[in-house]
């Protein structure tokens, strides 16, 4: 008798029945384990416990990076042939279209918040300040890397120009692109860093890339380069820098567009 052929009256052979049971059981156990993992991922208490590791990562990296070491700088021959643009490649707002049309002549960088002297800096005003050029690696949170040459003004110079007020702890970057594609401002890109990273020598406001003006896809007219953290910290299309003592009052309260969507505020890992 072939155990794989059903009985003439259509009944399963014991062999087939056992196999059906085993398959059902295995599939059931498998999906139960999977569902268990997904439930654990969505459990707020487990999530809060897992988030504690981020503090450990930040504390240990701060210990190691306390002396402000420089990220590795590369040579011209190491440049990526094509530097992938990520996130927004063309902000959709009318205001952006207008300043782009006018060659950014009417564009100003607002510097306000906890500063002594709020600023409204034009692109030429930024360009006459001391320049830093660096060939560095851009590391996306997804896992790819690209090497580019960036030219800009150290953020520390702009902050010193405005003068920090006591209580200043964070530098918040407000951007022109609505990556969340919302009708209101809640989808606007923003980012925040603390003063240790803000005053790092390689933290610059870049207006040039690979020897040319910063392309629109890479954040024209001005983007942040903060070389010891991942790509999503490198805010593009910056039009306002706010110095503050906290960032919890903004949007999702986590200090950045991607942070509000679950990613770590400290992106050094």
């Amino acid at each position, binding site marked *: 008798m072939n155990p794989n052929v059903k009985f003439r009256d259509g009944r399963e052979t014991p062999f087939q029945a056992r196999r059906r049971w085993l398959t059902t059981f295995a599939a059931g156990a498998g999906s139960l384990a*999977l569902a268990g993992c997904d439930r654990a*991922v969505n459990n707020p208490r487990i999530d809060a416990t897992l988030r504690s*590791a981020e503090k450990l990562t930040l504390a240990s990296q701060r210990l190691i990076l306390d002396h402000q070491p420089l990220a*590795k700088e*590369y040579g011209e021959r190491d440049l990526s042939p*094509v530097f992938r643009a990520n996130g927004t490649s063309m902000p959709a707002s009318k205001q952006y279209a207008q300043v782009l049309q006018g060659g950014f002549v009417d564009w100003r960088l607002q510097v306000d918040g906890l500063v002594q002297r709020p600023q409204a800096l034009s692109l030429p005003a930024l360009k006459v300040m001391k320049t830093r050029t660096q060939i560095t690696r851009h590391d996306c949170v997804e896992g790819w890397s690209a090497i580019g040459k960036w030219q800009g003004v150290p953020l520390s110079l702009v902050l010193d120009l405005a003068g920090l007020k006591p209580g200043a702890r964070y530098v918040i970057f407000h951007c022109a692109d609505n990556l969340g594609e919302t009708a209101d401002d809640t989808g606007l890109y923003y980012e925040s860093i603390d003063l240790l990273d803000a005053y790092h020598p390689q933290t610059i406001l870049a207006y040039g890339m690979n020897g040319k003006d910063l392309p629109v896809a890479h954040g024209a007219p001005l983007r942040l380069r903060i070389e*010891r*953290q991942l790509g999503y910290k490198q805010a593009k299309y910056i039009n306002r820098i706010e110095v503050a003592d906290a960032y919890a009052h903004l949007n999702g309260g986590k200090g950045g567009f991607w942070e509000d969507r679950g990613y770590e505020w400290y992106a050094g*890992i």
Partner: protein
Amino acid sequence: MTIARMPSGTIPHRAGTAPRQLVPRHSALVRVTHWINVFCFSLLLMTGAQIFNAHPRLYWGQYGADNDHAWLSIDSLNSANGLRGVVHVGALSIETTGLLGASKEDDAPAARGFPAWLTIPSYQDLAAGRRWHFFFAWLFVINGAVYLVGGLVQRHFRRDLLPTKAELAPAHLVQEVVDHAKLNFPKGEAARRYNVLQKLTYMGVAFVLLPLMVLTGLTMSPGLDSAFHILLDVFGGRPSARSLHFICASLLVAFVVVHVVMVLVSGVWNNLRSMITGRYAIELDGDQQ
């Protein structure tokens, strides 16, 4: 773990079978760190697959993104027959629809590197995958440090893992390989210790593969790279470190498969008991020397 403290005795045996004796096998240090490691490794592997899925391409060198040459990629292609999964390794391309590149997620075909049943969470969520990965990476590193320090202090490495000169003799190595292939496992006194293939494999895992996992993982951190440029020099760039991280993880999976098969064929309950209670049964008669 001193041997004297471990109770051991002869197990009652049926007539016609060799008398068996329970002997101390694994110290508490080895047992506890082993199971924590099993737990961490499983979660790190599945959350690692989740992270890999965010960009299922691997490169060599200092940079690597979509326009650069990938030595391995898991691609999802749209075809007339629906979504197709294709793995490219060097010049090879392998159809993997259903497993890699295109598999079902919530009963609908989805473009994803590894399938839902291999990733945590099952759906695509890079942020959650990273959060889990880094938490269990910390636990894994702390557990590994306890094992390394404890292993030195208790002379576990020297006593149990370091092969003797005689064991490393080519003739002995060949004999061990032949015995393993025939599933001929040591009995009696010889079963009290690891054989030389076990020693070499465990040393390779504990002192080469697992440390490489940690170091290549740390090389993917832009923060640590700025403090230790040497990481980038040693591994040849962040994309290379990511590739090596993947290769070492694959080798560890291969090790686990062989390890589990060996546990199954050489007496699963005896092996499991020895890794849980520490006691291992050996047959008193029939020594194979």
